[in-house]
């Protein structure tokens, strides 16, 4: 059975003039990029915009892709930046958001569109809680725990030292658990040894 061509091969074919290779590259990564954007932005329309922008950027920059990092790492970096751009655009247009919403996603409690991820209450909790934690923590957690990037890959995507990524992932998980209300459940378990102050 023939294996599908790796990303590098598709990129090489595209740069040699095979536009179908680019289509295959997009189709291969569409799901991954969209879900990354959906979890970073928490809104299906914004995620679609950011994912669309991501692939346009990939297209315009692909001839400058040097292959120093894996294509997926490079693409994640573009996608994360596209999400930041969408967030910035939304902050400049607060009147388009719901009244009282402002630029504080912390206030938002649910996905604005029906989302298969919402079928389970626990899933809804974690998806909503993701929107309530600081952006840099959310990005690190999404890359490591939802996109399954290694810490090394996440560090390259974010252009920060690997220790910084690990710290953000830990702090992000803790913040997420607290936003989900897990703290009260864990509190009893930890109470016996809680004399020490951090």
């Amino acid at each position, binding site marked *: 059975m023939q294996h599908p061509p790796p990303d590098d091969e598709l990129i090489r074919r*595209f740069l040699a*003039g095979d*536009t179908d290779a*680019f*289509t295959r590259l*997009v*189709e291969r990564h*569409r*799901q991954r*990029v*969209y*879900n990354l954007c*959906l*979890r970073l932005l928490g809104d*299906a329309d914004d995620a*679609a*915009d950011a*994912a*669309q922008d991501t*692939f*346009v950027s*990939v*297209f*315009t920059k692909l001839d400058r892709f040097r292959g120093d990092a894996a294509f997926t790492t490079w693409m994640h970096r573009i996608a994360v930046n596209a999400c930041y751009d969408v967030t910035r655009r939304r902050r400049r*247009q607060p009147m*388009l958001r719901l009244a009282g919403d402002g630029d504080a996603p912390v206030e938002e409690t649910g996905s604005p569109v029906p*989302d*298969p*991820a919402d079928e*389970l209450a*626990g*899933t809804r*909790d*974690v*998806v909503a809680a993701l929107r309530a934690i600081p952006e840099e923590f959310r990005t690190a*957690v999404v890359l490591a*725990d*939802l996109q399954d990037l290694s*810490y090394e890959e996440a560090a390259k995507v974010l252009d920060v030292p690997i*220790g910084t990524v*690990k*710290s953000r992932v*830990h*702090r992000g*998980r*803790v913040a*997420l*658990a607290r936003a*989900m209300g*897990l*703290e009260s459940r*864990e*509190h009893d*378990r*930890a109470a016996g*040894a*809680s004399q*020490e*102050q*951090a």
Partner: protein
Amino acid sequence: MTHPDDLLAAYEDGGALPDGERAALERHLATCARCREEVALAQGARRALAGVPDVEAPATIGQTAIARAGGRSRAPTWYRWVGVAAGVAAAIVALALLLPNVGSKGAAQRAEPAAAAAEATATGPPTTVSAATGIEHQGTNYDAMSVAELARSYGGRAYAVSLSAGGQDQTPAPQDSAFSSASTCLGQAAAGGQGVLIRLVDARFQGTPAFLGVYLTSPGAGQPANAVRVLVVRKDDCSQVLSSAWAKL
């Protein structure tokens, strides 16, 4: 007391830590209630995240880039635009010739599903539209939903593109420089891959001044239009595609 946050993430993963680091971390955890509690919380968050399923991505994502990739050329800019203009002119002629025959025996012999679908919906005479020659100015503030709605409003019909007074030439009348610059603006974003421009709207998209181009597209030269595409670009930066949507005819 300092807390080894950078080691805790890997510990929570249950992954391998170098022996020295693991021993030092476990000594710290034995005496630090704060870190023990955080590890328990973080592991709870990890379990919750593991249950988050992927959401199906809309198939339209990436289509703007694919259209641009399909329209790209390594030829010099002036040469590429000559090619684009020739392609558009050829498409107009082909559409004008073929669309009135949709639903006839000859058309019915085509085996392609897309063509069959078009025939199934195109029971009446095709709607005649002209290639855009001017700008519609609207006060509308579009968003992704209303752009998609605009695309869908063209669905379920067959179209014939009539040749305008200018014949096959897609170049607007010289006196309409605003249309000329706007259609060029959209054309740069579309890179020639969108089809025949039948409407050009000056409006806003989520508050940003934008041009909306409505295009009829066909799967190939000589084939009837099977889709309508709406492309939205920033007025002040034509390279920035704000949104796009398409609908089958």
